[in-house]
Structure formats: C-alpha cells, structure tokens
C-alpha cells in the first residue's frame, strides 16, 4: 500500500539530467561570454600586428578557432562528468 501511494505521489525517478538554472548558472554564462569576448579581441589584436609573419598569424588563428570551438563542448559536458 505504501509503495503504491509513493508511486502515485512521489516524482518519478528519471535518468535525464536536471535542467540547469539559478544564479550560479547565470554567473557562469556571464563569465563564459566575457571570456569569449576576451578571446575574440585577443585573437583579433594578434591579427592586426604588422610585424608578425602571415603563416604565424594563420597558425594562431587556427588554434583560436579550435579552442573556441572546443570550449562550448566542455561546458556542456561538465554537468555530465561531475555526476560520475
């Protein structure tokens, strides 16, 4: 009987992750966008340096694109990794 009542009134167990929210998450998103802007500015400033060889600029730009592309994947995966 108790088991049946619990099944009726208690929330069902779910394998999915809880949705992210709250002040901490907002702070995280602000920090992410601020650092993203910093990364774009730093990469852009490096491109504007006239004395740097074009090949070196190309290498730095490629690296910046890869790091900026990897960053959201890491951010998305962290809640999953921390549950293990």
């Amino acid at each position: 009987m108790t088991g049946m009542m619990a099944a009726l009134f208690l929330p069902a167990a779910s394998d999915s992750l809880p949705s992210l929210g709250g002040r901490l998450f907002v702070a995280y998103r602000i920090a992410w966008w601020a650092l993203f802007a910093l990364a774009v500015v730093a990469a852009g400033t490096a491109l504007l340096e006239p004395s740097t060889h074009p090949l070196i600029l190309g290498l730095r730009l490629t690296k910046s694109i890869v790091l900026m592309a990897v960053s959201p994947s890491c951010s998305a995966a962290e809640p999953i990794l921390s549950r293990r």
Partner: protein
Amino acid sequence: MMGLSFLLWTASSSVNFADASLAWPLLLDDSGFTVRICITAFSDGRWTPRWTRAVAIAILLVFLVGILEALGLFSTRSFLPLAIGCVLLTLSALLARYKSLTSLMAKQQLKWVALGLVVGISLILSARAGAAVAARSTMPMTGTILLECLFQLGIVIIALGFLTSLLR
C-alpha cells in the same frame, strides 16, 4: 570550468610565446595549463594518491611566485621552470590516477585526455626549449615559424584530446 579555461587559454596564447618579457600572458598560460590537468585528474575532488596534495600546494606557491614576478616585486625569472615542473608533476598525478581507475569507460576517456596532454606538452616544451636556445643566437624565419607551429599544434592536440574523450 574547463570551457572557461579554454577561452582564457585562447587569449593568453595569442601572443608571442618566446617573448619572456610578457609576464601576465605567460602566467595565465602556464597556470591555466595546470588547472586544466588538475580538473581532469581530480574531477571527483579526491586527492589520490596522497602525494598529490603536496603538488597542489606547490602549484599555489609557484602561482604566487608568478604573480610577484609579473608585478615586478621579484626580480628572478624562476616562474617558467617552476611552472613546467608543476605541469609535469600534475601530469604524473593524472597518469597515476589513470592506472588506479577500475571503470573501463572512465579509463578510456582519461586515456584520450592523457594522450593529448602527453603529446601536446611534449610539443609545447620542445617549442619553449627551441625558443630558449634561439634567444642566445639569431634564428632564421623558418625556425621561428617551425617553433610557433610546434607550440600552436601542441595546444590544438591538447584541446582535441579533451574533445575526443567527451565525444566518445
């Protein structure tokens, strides 16, 4: 934290890595590096094996030395060699954790990260060693491009190691 750390790394590694006078990018670069390995090695918050606590304290002390050097309060240039030592010690902690893991899935994920880190750190250290040697003599442009290529490739391989472990 890892995502934020990668964005910070984009900014700190966009300057000339061979220029030792750029203290703040160097500090952010090497400290961020250690933080990334630490997050991976101690993702569950457990400091195993025990000697890794001493490594964590050493990292904090070296970071303090780096700040003091960047502010000009210390006239030494000991931050970079000490930071490289910390990176290698943290990497040893990561490999020790890899050996002690029992879960096959966790082991496989850490394997990709460790592989990327070992290859990437080797390339970055080669580039730094080359830059240190080149600072004492004149280097042709080809050599400068080659060292830059090693450095940037090292960073890309580390990032791809993390990405592969997440996607698999």
